[in-house]
């Protein structure tokens, strides 16, 4: 039944397209209300996307957004809300920076060691929330928010010179990492360098898709998200699934800061980007938890980030991009639910019509079924 496949594809695209259109219109209204030209800022930002140096910035930024959003999406797929991605990736990057500054192995060992450090740190931090949920019934939302706060304090503590910190001027850093742990970028000439770990983001996306759609574990995870009771009856242990999903989510989250750490800053300092975990939530929502959708959403977000500073030079506030991000998230939530409901109903009607018309799979018997409700 290709017909239903096509329809599903249409529905998948309809949600984000409607949401984006609504968000653009609403942003234009905001601009209009503040007495500004409602079209020009968008024109300026679109223009920015054409410059190759901006493109490199967008791709680099998007790679981190992408990894963070994948981490969020894993949780979403089974109705877990891991708000703690923010703390998990910062702590993961911090630990990787510390290990990278103190261990000096050859590159082929050093890089995996750093990745592993980040993965384990992220998983450990999310795992605390998982254990609390499974053993004590603590909502993972509350636990991960608290863990974010704790992570921030922990990082400040580790920046102390008598712990792992190295003061450089006014900046707190963890000291420069050994060069064997640096990952060379992909040179783009004048435009700059694309982080080497962009490749990791792509691989994670592919791995995410394969795991969810082609493995038994992925099926169990999706089933748990779709109906906890049906999954339990099918033989999924709900507690183990919650714990595994949170560990996995945290493991991926731990990697989100590494593209910039290993590709550019080589230290965890006060300048290290924050808030990527929170942005990942919106991006995962917009991308409908699908690896391809999230990729588009991450690029869109990165574009809004990297193209908006230009607005300041033309008398607009670059914060319009932030407003727009907020509006996108809002409209996404509304439009997806509406499209989902509509799609379900529409399919029920169509199936009814097909059956009444006698299009029954594998049977030439066209008698209608009569049953009560």
């Amino acid at each position, binding site marked *: 039944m290709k017909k239903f496949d096509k329809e599903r594809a249409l529905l998948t695209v309809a949600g984000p397209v409607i949401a984006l259109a609504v968000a653009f219109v609403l942003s234009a209204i905001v601009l209009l209300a503040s007495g500004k030209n409602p079209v020009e800022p968008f024109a300026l930002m679109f223009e920015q996307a054409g410059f190759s140096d901006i493109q490199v910035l967008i791709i680099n930024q998007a790679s981190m957004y992408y990894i963070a959003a994948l981490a969020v999406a894993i949780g979403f797929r089974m109705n877990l809300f891991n708000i703690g991605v923010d703390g998990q990736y910062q702590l993961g990057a911090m630990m990787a920076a510390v290990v990278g500054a103190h261990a000096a192995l050859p590159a082929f060992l050093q890089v995996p060691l750093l990745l592993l450090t980040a993965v384990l740190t992220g998983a450990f931090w999310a795992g605390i929330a998982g254990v609390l949920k499974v053993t004590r019934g603590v909502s993972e939302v509350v636990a991960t928010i608290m863990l974010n706060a704790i992570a921030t304090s922990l990082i400040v503590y580790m920046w102390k010179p008598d712990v792992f910190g190295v003061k450089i001027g006014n900046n707190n850093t963890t000291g420069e990492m050994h060069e064997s742990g640096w990952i060379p970028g992909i040179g783009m000439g004048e435009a700059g360098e694309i982080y080497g770990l962009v490749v990791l983001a792509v691989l994670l996306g592919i791995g995410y898709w394969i795991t969810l759609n082609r493995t038994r574990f992925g099926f169990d995870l999706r089933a748990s998200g779709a*109906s906890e009771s049906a999954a339990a009856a*099918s033989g999924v242990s709900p507690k183990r699934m919650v714990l595994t999903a949170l560990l996995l989510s945290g493991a991926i989250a731990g990697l989100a800061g590494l593209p910039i750490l290993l590709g550019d800053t080589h230290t965890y300092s006060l300048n290290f980007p924050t808030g990527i975990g929170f942005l990942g939530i919106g991006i995962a929502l917009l991308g409908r938890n699908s690896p391809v959708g999230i990729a588009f959403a991450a690029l869109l977000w990165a574009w809004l980030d990297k193209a908006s500073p230009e607005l300041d030079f033309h008398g607009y506030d670059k914060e319009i991009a932030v407003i727009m991000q907020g509006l996108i998230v809002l409209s996404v939530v509304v439009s997806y639910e509406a499209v989902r409901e509509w799609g379900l109903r529409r399919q029920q009607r169509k199936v009814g019509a097909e059956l009444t018309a006698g299009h029954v799979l594998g*049977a030439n018997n066209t008698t209608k079924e009569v049953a009560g409700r």
Partner: protein
Amino acid sequence: MTAVELAGITKRFPGVVANHDIHLTVRKGTVHALVGENGAGKSTLMKILYGMQKPDEGTIAIHGEQVSFSSPADAIVRGIGMVHQHFMLADNLTVLENVVLGSEKLYGIGAKARRKIKELSERYGLGVRPDVLVEELGVAARQRVEILKVLYRGATTLILDEPTAVLVPQEVDALFDNLRELRAEGLSVIFISHKLGEVLSVADEITVIRRGTTVGTAVPAETTPRQLAELMVGSELPTPQTAESTVTDRAVITVEALRLAAPGGKALLDDITFTIHEGEILGIAGVEGNGQTELVDALIGLRQADSGVIRLADEEITAWPTRKRREQGIGYIPEDRHRHGLLLEAPLWENRILGHVTEKPNAKGIWLDPKAAQEDTRRIVETYDVRTPGIDVTAASLSGGNQQKLIVGREMTHKPRFLIAAHPTRGVDVGAQAAIWDHIREARREGLAVLLISADLDELIGLSDTLRVIYDGKLVADADPATITPEELGTAMTGAAEGHLEHDETPETPADLSKSAGSPEDEAR
């Protein structure tokens, strides 16, 4: 004078015609019974009359005046009131508060409302005390509050949806007295039921509904239960009789002294002991909520028993998780297919994988095998006559009967040794019902052991090789399905009889006419 007249009502749902050309006339001041099997379309019809559904065709006339309802509020204004099967009362409010809730404008919320409630209660002999908390009331008293709630809103026509399903026999008698009071006061009552004995004892007129359409009317004085039963099930008369016994002496599932307690310490299951052999169907009869759900949960592994032993063939499986039980050959047709049997928004072929994700053809090692699963879904759809245009549609878009056939097909495909079948034909049309019975019977011939739980006593008696009665978490009685009647079984289900049930030979209830053909006296006992 007609209170309600429905003419030519037709209602279609996706893939299903729930009501087709229905005609129903209720005279003022009468009790009118609407009878039909589970799934015949009674509830849909009443939802239409109460404004919860809009008919696709046909007309509704109240007191001779044509009306169109777009919500229950419209129906209430016209004097139609509904007493739902599942009560809609707030436990932590008093009776008075429950009654005035949503109708504060009628008589206020204070003394005037209390006076009105007392007056109604006395007039119709309902015995309702306005200041008691609803949580302190028993089932029958709650039902009277529901009736009073409807009267308080000025209803002149009351719809009672299976009101006796939750009552014990004495309470049924009391309810019927109340209904007679209402009738004497000139109110009309529409009484929905599938219990013929009750219907014959209380109704003035009877309309029979079968497979979504009205097939006839009857007057109790001129009708025998047998005639009514035949009207109800039609000429097909599908009987769930199993021909010859296939029971062997090889035990498949053995349960010993199973006990499961609620958090408060009350035993939900107490000292449950039974054995099911190869080729045997063990039927469990009981009023819902007496431990059936817990028993099924304990057997499939959704709940761990507090004590007791479960054995599958020679292996003790008490500590096994659900997945291992299913892999080792326990099939499961759940009571609530939406909660436990399906992923409603997933396509059919993913639903075919559900519960058997580790088994062939769904998986190869740790990998899923979508191609093979889809292939096999197509086979199930054809073999089990699941009416669907394809296997990529969501489970939600199928009708209940077709969803059930998919589940049965899925479970049977994996050749279970032991099948837990909880209400396997609930909400399923007559044709699909017969097909599901056939599949179960066939598997039984090949040595399947089945635990059958059903609210349909005819199904239980017809299919089972052995019958046990569950009451308050205990197996209190057993019976021989070859001789027992639904009425006798029904008595034991209320806890009134224990031990081995012997059949009293009475000429008008031969065992083969088990289709609810009991006499009213039997039923009301």
